[in-house]
């Protein structure tokens, strides 16, 4: 039996009838066509699927679409505004914070939450904040540089 949901994604309201077992990650990718949110494990370990649900970083593979009914979701596609990159995106670009780019959307969404909570994080704060996001390419150092860059830029 399908259930109807209304979820606002990046400011656009999506109404759909969904299977109760549909994960939010798949809702975003398949129902909304927003494939920037990646799936790396489906078991809430890798963090590639991280999005913001009502401002909170959530691994979208741990949440059913029906649980997100009535919420406001921000995905990587919603980070830039008016064609301007978000400071976190800019940081990742400047500091070579991505190689294959698969973990990147989730990393950036986690970083956005961190910077909203702590505008001047130390490198160790950043390490702690990103500890639930796996990257197999970069070795994390450039990602930490990127978040530091974004923090500075955000304060400027």
């Amino acid at each position, binding site marked *: 039996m399908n259930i109807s949901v209304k979820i606002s994604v990046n400011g656009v309201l999506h109404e759909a009838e969904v299977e109760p077992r549909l994960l939010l990650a798949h809702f975003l990718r398949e129902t909304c066509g927003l494939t920037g949110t990646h*799936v790396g494990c489906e078991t809430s370990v890798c963090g590639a699927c991280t999005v913001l649900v009502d401002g909170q970083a959530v691994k979208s593979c741990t949440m059913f679409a029906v649980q997100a009914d009535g919420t406001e979701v921000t995905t990587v596609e919603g980070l830039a505004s008016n064609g301007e990159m978000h400071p976190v995106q800019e940081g990742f670009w400047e500091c070579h914070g991505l190689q294959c780019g698969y973990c990147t959307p989730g990393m950036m969404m986690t970083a956005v939450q961190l910077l909203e909570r702590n505008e001047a994080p130390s490198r160790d704060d950043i390490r702690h904040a990103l500890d639930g996001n796996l990257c197999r390419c970069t070795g994390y150092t450039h990602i930490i540089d990127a978040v530091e860059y974004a923090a500075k830029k955000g304060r400027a």
Partner: protein
Amino acid sequence: MSTTTEKPPVTKSTQKYIGRAMKRVEDPRLLKGVGTYVDDVQLAGVVHAEFVRSPHANASIKSINTDAAKKLPGVIGVFTGADINEKAGTIPCASPLPGGKSPVHTVLAGSRVYFVGHPVAVVVAKTRAIARDALELVEVDYEPIPAVIDPEKALEKGSALTHPELGTNVAFTWGLAGGDVDAAFKEADRVFKLRILHQRVTPMAIEPRGCAASWHSGESSLTLWTSTQIPHLIRTLLPGMIGIPENKLRVVTPEVGGGFGSKLNLYSEEAVVSHLAMRLNRPTKWIEGRRENAAVTIHGRDQIGDHEVAIKNDGTVLAIRSNIIADIGSYLQLLTPAIPTLTGLMIGGCYKLKAVKVDITGVHTNKMSADAYRGAGRPEATYIIERVMDYVADELGLDPIEVRLKNMPQSGEFPFTTITGLQYDSGNYQAALEKAKELAQWPRLLKERENARAEGRLFGIGLSTYVEICALGPSKIMAAGGWEWGCVRIEISGKVTVITGATPHGQGQETSFAQIAADRLGIPIEDIVVLRGDTATAHFGRDTYGSRATALGGTAIAMSIDKIIEKTKTLAAALLEAAPADIEFAEGKFFVRGSEAKSIGWGQLASEAYVAKNLPPGFEPGLEASSFFEPPNCTFPFGTHICAVEVDRDTGQVKILKYTAVDDCGKQVNPLLIEGQVQGGIAQSLGAALMERTVYDENGQLLTGEFMDYAIPRALDIPEYALGSTETPSPSNLLGVKGVGEAGTIGATPCIGNAVIDALSPLGIRHVDLPFTPERVWRAIQEKGGTL
């Protein structure tokens, strides 16, 4: 504190891109979330495949009942080996060794399964969810057979056999000998033995594998989108398997979410999905789940080595005699046998040994196949020889640096021919070591260790001076060609399209190749687009693995540009009313020697070349050239890594305090990308040193089947770095590039291993097996009573 890296050399002109740390042109699409990975490829009417996989490591299949699955609404078909194997070929191994025995590797299991995850049947349904539901409805009646798991026991007489039809568990044997080993051992003052295990590891790219295929019935052609490092090799190998001509197959590599060798293969699923798309005449897609990725995408390493080392009392290492057992799992995948041979070839490291003898036995067990994982055979070799160097120092009471310096060739001795017959192209190992000592503040590090030890803390310093073999070619040593291809086209507008046969998947060659082309053509980098990863545009290619893309692919592009410049001189001469021999080219302009003021640029020349109204006699319209670069030799990057660690006596936890690396990858095109490769490589190596181990239990069940059970490094595990480099150009290509994709993975594990053993040495501990997990280290400490 962030990574300290030396500043890249300042270049004279703003037009010089090579050597500059430039951010990547591929990033904006990835940062905005609009890059297309294979699961993002949209195909109208696509159907989804899921595989029924064996839960047993070894079993015969009594029966398969697909009736219930076929009846599930939304299911389009269920196919078993009996339905498909005849039509989808067998999985190829491109590097078989003479005398080796290999089982026939059908795409789906026949009457028996050989490893957990072995595909038995495939379900196709309208949605992925329905396909997954249908998996549960396929009934397979297995009769389990005791599994062959321990590779050493597998070699014992009377052992059960992984593949009974082969009559043995030995898949291949391979030997290498150089110098007079017996004489070297006779000459020795001392001989010691070391047993070194290199554990099995799982590559775990964050994007699992996946593919989608579309049959174009009008043209009788197939397009395969696949998350692979090797679209071109697949285009060579797959047509014969699925019964279409090579020129009816297009392979597209969209964005690839990490490879590390794990996507350097032609896998069953790619053949099955291609076959199904043709058979059903519907676009068919399969996306690997994480559990599948851990179980059925190749594993790496897994070697047991018994080594005997002959040394002189002054620290000279005379010879190594090694017996290596490689647990290769159930089947030979694309390069399975080649990997341990690389260990054999590189076992002497960057040292002048008098003799080497290596015997390798590849053993079949009921596990997933082992194949190329980042470093591929060289991390194992480096771990062996670098542990040996520390062992020698320990044995003789010498400084590990002195032992290394004593055995290294001098910079004047290059090209240096090793005792195993390799020719190391260029090197200055002492310079890299010296620089690393400086960056690591060596005397201070020694002082810190002394102080820490005085306080009873377990503080250790490790180093590794590695050399690796990269840019794999020439063709005579490669199964299917060791060249690389590139094409450059000056478009009619003067914009430039560069097409590479390499297949970057995160390394950033859309940027670094544009840097190479911009410098050589003398144009702004913004005018260049680099295309890759589609056999319809990159007509030839040998793809990306073995740190070969920039050294070989970059060179093919440079060669193509040189051809275009030569050709264009004729046209410029006609337009400038001069003789072609008098035309010079510099900074993007053609001019008559001595009168630079009157010059013509690419824009005007391109339009003349294509509009073709004023061409000199014999001038073929257009400005395009392509090249195959056949390298004369491999390249041999090298470097020195130094790290300091502290071991927690109570928990066995290893903490890396400071990590220094000086890598020499030849000429540097983009230092920022090189730094990224080094850091990423070190992180993977750190994983192998401290936490990663693929575990099968005695029944062949995979215990490390997902991220919850298989630890890869996280942000908190990563130390701060001091990174540096030396730049010794390779004489093997005109760019002088050597390659850097695997350096970190090769140099770091022995460096960390040596540091951990050094930290534990006051307790009398001389050896612990990889990986240095807290439990293993703690046990080693307990065995020694845990006290000084």
